[in-house]
């Protein structure tokens, strides 16, 4: 089973046209058409999955996450449009660069290879996985949860129809139908045949993928994100930035968890947040006190709250003596995802941005700006906190590697005198 999956994925990779071929643009258009025409069947299959999930006793929140609607189709069509527009800039080779007087160097984009994506109970990821890596010429193995088996089968039919219409090998996308975790484990043990692993899901799943094998992993490690508010900051703006960084999507990976605020302005900062009356819980540490107001609830920050994701509309506030203490805190508790600083002092901003190591540091703005489309970097399949190859939004261009093509025109190393 595993061997067959891997060999057909590799064969499709080799049979696929080179990066930048018009077939990938055709595939985007065909995928939009096939998804649209088959959406009634996808929804019918999805109803089966949802009913089965209810019968099995899955919690309502998980059942809802499984459910697809017309809105999901609209979202996927917008994504396909965006990816189509990004395809040219992301995959066009750079012009040749002269090498001395004897040759030229070309950096030619190549797919990463066979990409294994594993994710939990979110059927739209099946389409994202069949789109973003594939338009970069990769062959993908998609392993969703068994809860979405019927939906995935219907989506796979649409995807394969689109691949064939576009003149691409159908084997470029394999939706793994066998839900047995032994297949998943067997694939993790094949660094010789799987080039990249992209997990999307719970911390336990991502940690497992990182530690269970030697396949390079592109993953977001979750966002334990901080906002440092310097004493020079406009505190009303800092409060607005903190709330915007949290409230729209409290469990997102780029959301805010803890505000580190210079201690001499900490009370005033808290007062500014309370003044907004926003629907949020402030967990106050370091002896800070405040009265609740409007929708703002006040609680105490516990030691185990440091370094955690609240996954709800809760923001911790901890006073710090200075920027160095803030940097020290982020180094100890941060997850290298998204950090921010609010300050009118260029020296403090520079000290924070140099001292903190994260995929993105936002200066005087919301942490939720760290998003591929919002930053103009392109559609993303995740936000990587890894240190190598890609950090931040994982866009089409991040799913490519390259070959250096050396146009040597008969040159010999011996003739170069070195």
């Amino acid at each position, binding site marked *: 089973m595993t061997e067959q999956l891997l060999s057909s994925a590799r064969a499709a990779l080799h049979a696929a046209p080179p990066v930048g071929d018009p077939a990938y643009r055709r595939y985007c258009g065909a995928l939009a058409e096939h998804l649209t025409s088959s959406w009634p069947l996808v929804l019918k299959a999805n109803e089966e999955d949802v009913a089965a999930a209810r019968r099995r006793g899955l919690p309502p929140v998980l059942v809802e996450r499984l459910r697809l609607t017309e809105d999901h189709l609209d979202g996927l069509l917008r994504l396909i449009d965006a990816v189509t527009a990004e395809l040219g800039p992301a995959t066009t080779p750079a012009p040749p660069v002269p090498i001395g007087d004897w040759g030229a160097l070309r950096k030619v984009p190549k797919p990463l290879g066979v990409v294994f994506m594993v994710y*939990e109970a979110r059927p739209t990821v099946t389409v994202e996985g069949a789109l973003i890596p594939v338009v970069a010429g990769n062959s993908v193995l998609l392993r969703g949860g068994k809860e979405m088996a019927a939906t995935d089968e219907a989506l796979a039919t649409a995807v394969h129809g689109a691949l064939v219409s576009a003149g691409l090998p159908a084997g470029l996308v394999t939706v793994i139908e066998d839900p047995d975790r*032994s297949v998943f484990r067997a694939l993790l043990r094949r660094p010789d045949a799987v080039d990249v692993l992209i997990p999307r899901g*719970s911390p*336990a799943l991502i940690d497992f993928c990182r530690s269970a094998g030697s396949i390079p992993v592109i993953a977001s490690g979750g966002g334990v994100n901080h906002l440092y508010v310097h004493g020079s900051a406009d505190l009303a703006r800092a409060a607005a930035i903190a709330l915007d960084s949290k409230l729209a999507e409290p469990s997102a990976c780029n959301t805010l968890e803890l505000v580190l605020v210079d201690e001499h302005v900490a009370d005033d900062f808290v007062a500014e947040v309370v003044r907004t009356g926003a629907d949020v819980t402030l967990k106050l540490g370091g002896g800070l006190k405040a009265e609740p107001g409007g929708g703002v609830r006040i609680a105490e920050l516990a030691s*185990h709250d440091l370094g955690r*994701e609240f996954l709800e509309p809760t923001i911790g506030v901890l006073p710090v003596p200075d920027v160095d203490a803030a940097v020290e805190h982020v180094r100890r508790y941060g997850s290298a995802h998204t950090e921010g600083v609010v300050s009118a002092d260029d020296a403090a901003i520079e000290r924070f941005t140099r001292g903190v190591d994260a995929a993105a540091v936002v200066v005087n703005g919301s942490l939720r700006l760290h998003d591929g489309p919002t930053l103009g970097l392109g559609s993303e399949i995740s936000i990587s906190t890894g240190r190598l190859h890609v950090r931040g939004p994982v866009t089409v261009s991040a799913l490519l590697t390259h070959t250096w093509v050396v146009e040597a025109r008969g040159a010999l190393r011996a003739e170069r005198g070195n």
Partner: protein
Amino acid sequence: MSVEAQDRVTVTRAVKTVVIAESRLSIDPDAVSGDEPLNGELLRVNSFGFVGMLVRLEDDLGVTLPDDLFVGRTFTTVDDLVSVVLDAVEAAR
């Protein structure tokens, strides 16, 4: 220590380790008591993480656990989870 008691110690540690990871906490497993709520002030475990938790537990305990181990049950505390995993580990042997 009997085999059963040894199993309970091993399973309890594995379960605590996995719920700590799932709750995005960096604390020692010994700091989590058996009657700690799975979804409370300290731990934040929800059903989204079941696949990841299963593979982590299988790896740590060296057993294959049923796919539906966590489905259709109500877990309130860490001990509830330990009991279910312990039963499954004993059944798998």
